């Protein structure tokens, strides 16, 4: 019995040595919550001038005394493009502060100076760090670029304008969502919602898009300037597919998928549509088309961008820009 008791004691002693874990803590770090803020290693920006396709990303490097919220605001001097990057870290590096030249929304950055401001909103005593970076080359978009209206009208495009409407490509106004040019609709049409449209077609064949619609997004910039608002004006898209592959779209036998986007205000909106979602309406019901009913981007032969506005409100004006397809996620300007 005595031996048994000793064995039990030994077993207890064996478990009595809890291994010290000197790295784990329970809960958030008190230093982050209540510790003093200071800059341990000077915060520096990686580039004063950047050509994004060549130089890669612009980023900050440096070290703080604690994990804290930081916010980087980037503003284009000419375009007014905006980009915000936020985080909660102690170390600032390319891992968490990288800017690839993109904007949070339209308009995008052009060849211009970008004003950069780094702030620590939870640290009242922290300095505000300001830098200026000159953009010598804008970022190259990933995706299937359709048009930014920079090259004028395509050879197979069709333009429709009501008699009282001026619809055309405009360049150099400084108002483009991206680049220098955009397509503008402007005029009063008291008798009809239809203002004007531009039907974009490739020079030949299809747009060369991938076959899968399930991860393909169509994107476009849209800005309603006059007669805007969610009950006053909208863009109607037609996506025409050459189902039988004869090189001609027949609206009586082939698929025309449509999509409406109502304006939200008088700023640039980024419209992003998952191409596979075109087969259902807003309520999720299957839409009726004349063809096989399947969204097939590889067969897409034309995109019609149609601007419509409430005739009772008088003069209407809108701009569209930068049509691009992206895979896996919506476009980021």
């Amino acid at each position, binding site marked *: 019995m005595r031996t048994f*008791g000793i064995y039990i004691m030994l077993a207890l002693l064996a*478990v009595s040595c*809890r291994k010290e874990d000197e790295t784990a803590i*329970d*809960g*958030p770090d008190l*230093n982050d*919550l209540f510790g003093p803020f200071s800059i341990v290693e000077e915060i520096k920006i990686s580039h004063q001038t950047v050509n994004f396709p060549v130089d890669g990303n612009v980023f900050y490097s440096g070290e703080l005394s604690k994990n804290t919220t930081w916010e980087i605001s980037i503003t284009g001097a000419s375009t007014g493009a905006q980009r915000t990057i936020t985080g909660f870290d102690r170390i600032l590096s390319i891992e968490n502060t990288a800017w690839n030249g993109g904007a949070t929304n339209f308009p995008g950055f052009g060849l211009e100076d970008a004003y950069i401001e780094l702030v620590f909103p939870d640290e009242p005593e922290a300095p505000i760090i300001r830098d200026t970076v000159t953009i010598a080359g804008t970022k190259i978009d990933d995706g299937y670029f359709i048009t930014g209206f920079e090259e004028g009208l395509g050879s197979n495009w069709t333009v429709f304008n009501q008699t009282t409407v001026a619809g055309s490509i405009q360049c150099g106004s400084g108002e483009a969502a991206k680049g220098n040019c955009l397509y503008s609709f402007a005029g009063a049409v008291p008798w009809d919602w239809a203002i004007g449209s531009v039907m974009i077609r490739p020079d030949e064949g299809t747009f060369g898009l991938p076959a899968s619609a399930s991860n393909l997004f169509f994107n476009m910039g849209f800005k309603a300037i006059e007669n805007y608002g969610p009950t006053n004006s909208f863009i109607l898209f037609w996506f025409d597919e050459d189902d039988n592959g004869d090189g001609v779209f027949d609206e009586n036998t082939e698929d025309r998928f449509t999509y409406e986007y109502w304006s939200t205000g008088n700023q640039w909106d980024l419209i992003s549509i998952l191409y596979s979602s075109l087969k259902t309406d807003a309520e999720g019901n299957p839409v009726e088309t004349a063809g096989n009913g399947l969204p097939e981007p590889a067969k897409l032969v034309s995109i019609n961008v149609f601007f419509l506005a409430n005739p009772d409100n008088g003069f209407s004006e809108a701009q569209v820009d930068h049509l691009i397809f992206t895979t896996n996620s919506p476009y980021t300007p």
Partner: protein
Amino acid sequence: MAKYLSIVILVLISAVSVGQQRKFQINGSARGYYFDNDLDIDDQLDSITTRKANYGHTLMDLAVSVFPEKNTEIIGTFRIRNELGGFWGAGTSFLVRQLTLRGVAGGVVRYELGDIDLKLTPYTLHNFEEEGMVNEADVFALRRDIVHYDMFYNAGNTWRMQGANVGFGLNFSRLIDQINVKAFITRQRMTDGLAVPERLYGGGTLQLVQSEQFNLSVNSVNIFDLKETIPDSIQFKNSVHSMHLAYAKHLAPEWKGGVEGEAGFSETRYINYSDTRAPEQMGDWFYDVGLNLQSQPNGIRIKLGYKDIGADFLSPGAQTKRINYEKYPGVFQQITNDAIGRPMSYSDVISGAAETSVRISEELLVYNPAYDNATPYGAATPNRRGTYLNVVREDTVGFREIFVEAAYLTQSRGTGTLQKKKFIVFKAGADVYFNDWMGWKNDLKMDLGVRFENTSRSGEAYETITLNSTMVDAGLTWEFVSNFDVMLGAKMLMADGNAFVDLRNRYNTIENFAIADVSFTENLYAAGLRYRFNERNAVSAHYQMFNIVHADAQLVDYGITQFSFLLSLKF
């Protein structure tokens, strides 16, 4: 209501008639309790709260035990409660307080079904005491007992549950003396059919008594949600398994020494929770081992022990607090012109105005660091390790009981920092019977108790902690005329320092910390008169003054005076 009364009368009549054949037994208790509360607060701070709150009730608990045959008992306790001021049935409630069927099947297996009281070990299933009492004076204990009785906080630290409990023992003639088996299953919660699954709690113990010198037990408790009681498939599971052993041996004619210990582990799972904060699985272990020395003739017991409770050790049956400090008390719930919630105080706990737990909770409830920062969840408080010493001396002339307890504990894992909190706890108390020395027949007893706790954490300025809290519990009970007692009591808490209060989510993960400037004094004084009709029946009147004074002028100082009258009868 008339229907219920008819049933009670019928039961009584039946009981009386059958009672003559000794097939029933009636006992119970009754009480009348009246409170008059006055709030004392600066008129400029609070011009909207009414200053008076009066209420009271009378009630009777009628317990009927029926014996259908000699090994079976059916216990039914009915409570009729009438709120004072609610005439003609308004404010009257009639409820079943207990319904238990118990007996011995086949002369071997003991069983209980219905409302049952359960307890295993301090690390598995144990209803540990609330804060605020160290050898409490009679004038306070008398009223606290009412709360304990109502909440089923029985003397043996049991939890009242609903379910079934069976047990049996086997005696042996060789090698081991006895094996005892106990198993239970209880229903903790019923499903709502939508989002809350049915919850059961089951477990048991297997005890092996080798001899008077050595015994060993294996204990297990398990909480589990029943699948398919809701459309969703979420499931909470917690198991605690432990082994307890005790070995004792005579070291000298009057002295016995031994070793006693318990070790085990917990495992917790949150299955199919969509909330990403829910840890899929967590577990930890504990042990508590000590050396005992006792002398029965001298009334001395000494225990020197060491324990280590893991930071992720979760044992709802042993860690559920009786008082939920997150809630506000029932009386003067909001004060000041801003209608802020009034925090719970010692006074509220004694008066029964505090929110109390009726079932075990898988969440670690909020605690007040000034009241108990070292062991807020009892012996099974997670993330504690260290040494303790308990010394008790009983049955001496004058000092009928003296005890000293000391502990030095630390965290095993830092909270919010690698620096660990350190706790020093010292507790002492004595029952002093002056009449033993003076040769008086009537008691003149003084209850003395003190608890000191120091919490510290070193490190950078933003993480340091220094918190001292001292609680003094003192009282005097003098039977100045036969069966007539005058009772005095004082309870004082002085807390000074700072604390970081853990803010946990529903999965017991610390998500943030609240910095608390804990510098206040809480005083509670009481005086009372009691007349004891006999050992079980008494009438008493009490006057109690409470106030809280903060060092920080921004915090609200106030007081509550209370007059209460209690008639307590047992039959």
